[in-house]
């Protein structure tokens, strides 16, 4: 029988266990967060949709200057959806282990699973929200269909990787230092206007462009916009910067999770 404590099992079985555990954690997480009242788990993507619609409306009303001839709706949708994607993952993973410490008694559940479940959930919510709003805006004619949907997906996945790695790293750090939670909020707010959501790199003066491209989120957002608008967006990004950045961050995150797993004390 497949009970706890099955160590040294073949890879195929491990994979099956992994999928089962993540599935169970996802359902548990969704039920805990959204319950079965009113629209239940639909909040998963309704909430980000409301955010994005609100920001789109505000930016449209304010005739936000973004330095290109792109329609403001398109600009807001791609920009703010990207922000939700990378910003919510760390927000949900910080302190996540404290809320789930009891689960450490089930030996099939690892610290990383707790973070992975929350990251997947945020990814799902942000992606469904982005996709549904895109379809809606395209259907009513506010938005042209994306020129290169694969590039949109590529940029989106890159942002998700960045957000997921940051979430895992900060989540694991936050278990042992309250500073992480305290500093993440101001940091994420300050990063928002710098993240590439509210400007096109191309519209910046050359010196600013140079510095903007040090901010990792800028690259992902630029790729998403290039996929959406093609040459009209004149995107600036460097895969040679953002991919190594994500790899190093992921490695740091996994090291931190490993250290934490050895030290964690269940309630």
């Amino acid at each position, binding site marked *: *029988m*497949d*009970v*706890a*404590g*099955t160590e040294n099992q073949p890879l195929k079985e491990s994979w099956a*266990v992994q999928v*089962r*555990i993540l*599935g*169970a954690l996802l*359902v*548990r997480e969704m*039920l*805990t967060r959204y*319950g079965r009242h009113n629209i239940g788990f639909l909040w998963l993507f309704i909430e980000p949709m409301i955010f994005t619609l609100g920001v789109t409306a505000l930016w449209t009303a304010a005739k936000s200057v973004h330095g290109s001839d792109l329609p403001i709706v398109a600009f807001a949708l791609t920009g703010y959806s990207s922000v939700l994607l990378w910003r919510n993952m760390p927000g949900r993973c910080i302190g996540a282990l404290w809320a*789930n410490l*009891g*689960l*450490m*008694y*089930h*030996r*099939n*559940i690892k610290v990383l699973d707790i973070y992975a479940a929350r990251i997947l959930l945020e990814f799902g919510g942000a992606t469904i929200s982005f996709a549904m709003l895109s379809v809606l805006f395209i259907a009513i004619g506010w938005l042209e269909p994306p020129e290169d949907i694969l590039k949109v997906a590529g940029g989106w996945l890159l942002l998700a990787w960045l957000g997921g790695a940051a979430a895992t790293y900060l989540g694991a750090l936050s278990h042992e230092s309250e500073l992480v939670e305290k500093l993440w909020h101001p940091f994420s707010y300050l990063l928002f206007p710098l993240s590439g959501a509210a400007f096109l790199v191309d519209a910046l003066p050359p010196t600013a462009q140079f510095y903007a491209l040090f901010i990792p989120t800028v690259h992902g957002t630029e790729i998403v916009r290039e996929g959406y608008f093609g040459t009209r967006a004149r995107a600036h990004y460097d895969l040679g910067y953002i991919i190594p950045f994500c790899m190093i961050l992921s490695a740091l995150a996994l090291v931190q999770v490993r250290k934490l797993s*050895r*030290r*964690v*004390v*269940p309630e």
Partner: protein
Amino acid sequence: MIRLRDIRKVYETRHGSKLVLDGINFDLTMGERLGVLGQNGAGKSTLIRLISGAEHPTSGAVERNISVSWPLAFGGAFQVFLTGIDNIRFISRIYNQEFEMNLAFVEEFAELGAYLKEPVRTYSSGMRARLAFAISMIIEFDCFLIDEISAVGDERFHDRCNYELFEKRADRAMIIVSHDAAYIRDHCTRWGVLHATKLELYDDFEDAYADFKELIRWKPPPGWPNVEVPTA
């Protein structure tokens, strides 16, 4: 078989390192039930967590080639915002078990009736204990870890727990920690006393209990009970 070798556990605290367990060695085979006596804070629960694998020793090794339960009486990691049924479903998924069968067992055993459909946070401590115990029984572990099970619930519940554990599962290995000496005497086959980071093992309960009493004896102030209370 469960084998503990040279277990040492140190917690880093604000006041420096605290040695909780040191040089713990023992083997436990199927059918054996080890009862561990110890004061509050002696490290009983830490020992249980190390054996369960939820926590790792600072040095030494815990070898298990049988499946080990989570500490019974502990909620099996209840999510208190979820209903009893959702918690059963979660545990069933984690351990790859059939949910319907488990639900039927818990309904029968925990006697919670319609409360199973309510969030666990609305349960009393006795109701939580019933649910926790019933959920622990749906997974057939080879070794059960029992941490102060006699602390909660009414007599009927105790009797049913004892029947499930010591009659129906008499062939399993168990480790029971408690300050309730009578409980440990009645249900164990081997005994241990945990004191000042060391675990002393005994084959006879009376020897263990005598040493335990001596170790934890309250030493009254000189002249007690005729001590003059100082007046201001």
